[in-house]
């Protein structure tokens, strides 16, 4: 079946039937090409999606203060709720089995100056754990640490774009900048995948901010990071416990929905994941459709090829070709063509995806790619179905009596 002679015979047939070869090769190559490109672009869509939602930690709860709307335990309604340092200590103590870290976040904005450069920036006064909540990546220097909190140091960590604006290409580490009239030493520069705005932030110890603001212990809002292993169910349970705990401590009616707010990223995360899954299903569906179309295409061509060759096969049979040799020559020919053109289509598709790269970022397609295993198995699938699609008419052709085949005009 695989002797050199058989292959020579097959190569001759392929060479001398260029249209047929081209048609079946083109169908397969195009099918695989479209599959690879579509699937890759689908993946690019998912990448964009991940970029949008993936820059912050997902195992965190954001807590914001509000105003009460229901009178409770002798307190009037419309009371402003405020959080202070002791709340965080209590939460860490009482919900220790869920909570990994807590950090305040006091947001202010002000004019920041360095030498002749100045600009308005948002400052966030935070604890060291804030780095995990925001997934802040340090480029140089260090982030705030517990010593800074304890000693109320006048240190800041600035965003990449802040450094670029104020310092140009000069090194900022160790330099002093003027933040709303007070000199702070730059100890670190960070980057963040959340975009430009996130890289125009300045972080300082929350204790320093509190000292500046008349030595208060108030905090605007805070972030509770929970242990990732508690999962979605655990996160929802923590959400509930935290709600109950704060309401009890701050004397807020259990029915009051406005005393404070908890933004649960886990809930959002789940929705996002569902959305991503739907995207993936759509992509898979389209890709599957393309493969089916390719299979139908190659099947049609195989039927046509065998039909076209009926008389030739009849002649071959009259000259002593066994049904086996008829089937195997048709199959080997089709498998050979589909394999070569399938892999050409696959490589072309991958090349197109690589070439696209981030050029289509404006259309929400980031870094399209296809899994090599996926591409190869799709190609193999098409080759396999091409062979099966060829086998059925080939078998039928081999069974036709030579006299019938010879009469075919």
């Amino acid at each position, binding site marked *: 079946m695989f002797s050199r002679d058989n292959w020579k015979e097959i190569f001759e047939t392929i060479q*001398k039937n260029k249209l047929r070869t081209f048609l079946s090769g083109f169908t397969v190559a195009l099918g695989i090409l479209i599959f690879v490109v579509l699937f890759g672009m689908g993946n690019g869509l998912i990448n964009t999606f991940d970029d949008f939602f993936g820059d912050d930690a997902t195992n965190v709860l954001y807590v914001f203060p509000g105003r009460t709307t229901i009178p409770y335990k002798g307190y009037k309604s419309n009371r402003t709720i405020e959080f202070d340092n002791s709340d965080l200590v209590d939460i860490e103590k009482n919900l220790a089995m869920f909570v990994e870290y807590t950090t305040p976040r006091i947001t202010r904005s002000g004019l920041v100056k360095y030498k002749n450069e100045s600009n308005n920036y948002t400052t966030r006064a935070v604890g060291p754990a804030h780095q995990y909540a925001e997934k802040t990546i340090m480029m140089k220097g260090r982030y705030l640490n517990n010593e800074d909190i304890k000693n109320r140091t006048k240190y800041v960590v600035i965003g990449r774009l802040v450094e670029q604006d104020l310092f140009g290409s000069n090194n900022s580490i160790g330099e002093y900048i003027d933040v709303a009239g007070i000199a702070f030493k730059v100890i670190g520069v960070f980057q963040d995948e959340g975009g430009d705005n996130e890289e125009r932030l300045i972080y300082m110890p929350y204790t320093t901010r509190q000292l500046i603001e008349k030595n208060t212990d108030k905090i605007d809002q805070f972030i509770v990071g929970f242990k990732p292993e508690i999962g979605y169910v655990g996160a929802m349970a923590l959400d509930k416990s935290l709600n109950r705990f704060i309401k009890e401590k701050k004397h807020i009616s259990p029915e009051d929905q406005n005393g404070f707010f908890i933004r649960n990223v886990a809930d959002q995360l789940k929705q996002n994941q569902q959305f991503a899954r739907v995207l993936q299903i759509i992509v898979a569906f389209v890709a599957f459709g393309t493969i089916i179309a390719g299979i139908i295409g190659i099947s049609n061509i195989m039927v046509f090829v065998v039909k076209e060759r009926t008389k030739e096969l009849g*002649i*071959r049979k009259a*000259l*002593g070709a066994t*049904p086996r040799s008829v089937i195997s020559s048709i199959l080997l020919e089709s498998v050979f063509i589909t394999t070569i053109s399938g892999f050409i289509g696959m490589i072309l598709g991958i090349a197109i995806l690589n070439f696209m790269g981030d050029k289509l970022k404006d259309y929400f397609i980031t870094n399209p790619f296809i899994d090599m295993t996926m591409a190869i198995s799709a190609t193999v699938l098409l080759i396999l179905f091409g062979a099966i699609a060829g086998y059925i008419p080939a078998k039928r052709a081999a069974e036709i009596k030579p006299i019938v085949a010879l009469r075919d005009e």
Partner: protein
Amino acid sequence: MIEIKDLHKSYKMGSNSLHVLKGINFSVEDGELVAIMGSSGSGKSTLLNILGMLDELDEGSYTLDGVPIKNMNETKAAQYRNKFLGFVFQSFNLINYKTAAENVALPLYYQKVGRKERQEKALKYLEQVGLREWAGHLPSELSGGQKQRVAIARAMAAEPKVLLADEPTGALDSKTSYEVMDLIQKINDAGNTILIVTHEPDIAKMCKRIVHLKDGIIIEDEKITQVRAAQYVQ
């Protein structure tokens, strides 16, 4: 060489069945040149197809070179065809994308003869039919007579025991017909057994024996004095 006893064959045409061969008894010796004649519908082509194992018989027996031919599967039939029989068809049936030499070499390919030997043999047989210089041409570049001579060379290449020709001159003018018959006679002179189906009396007279078929039975079987085709060929 060929031994046929009480051969019956019918074709199903919907609910009817058409009884084509109604008990043929017939034998051919080694080295004979037999013409099978008959009007259209007499069953001569059917008989040839059965002889050529292109079609199956319903009843009776067929022995070819001492081998009983019956209940053959396609693979076996193909092997026997390849080993025992050479075919020449009215419409030549050359493979149009193969050159003359490749067409002649094809039966040898199915005999698993090596490539080099195939080419040598193909050229040798093309030489015999006078077309050696046409070896590299495609059938579309050949005249009808040349095509038929290539087909004869192809049939001879497998060195069969019997050569079966179905209206070999049917698509040719009389001059070319005589050339082809001259070739067939020469092949027969070399000792090959040949059966020709024809409805042209002058072609039949160039054989050594004429079998007349009518309505599925043999009505006449006579040995004749052969007319040599060479006298008509300049």
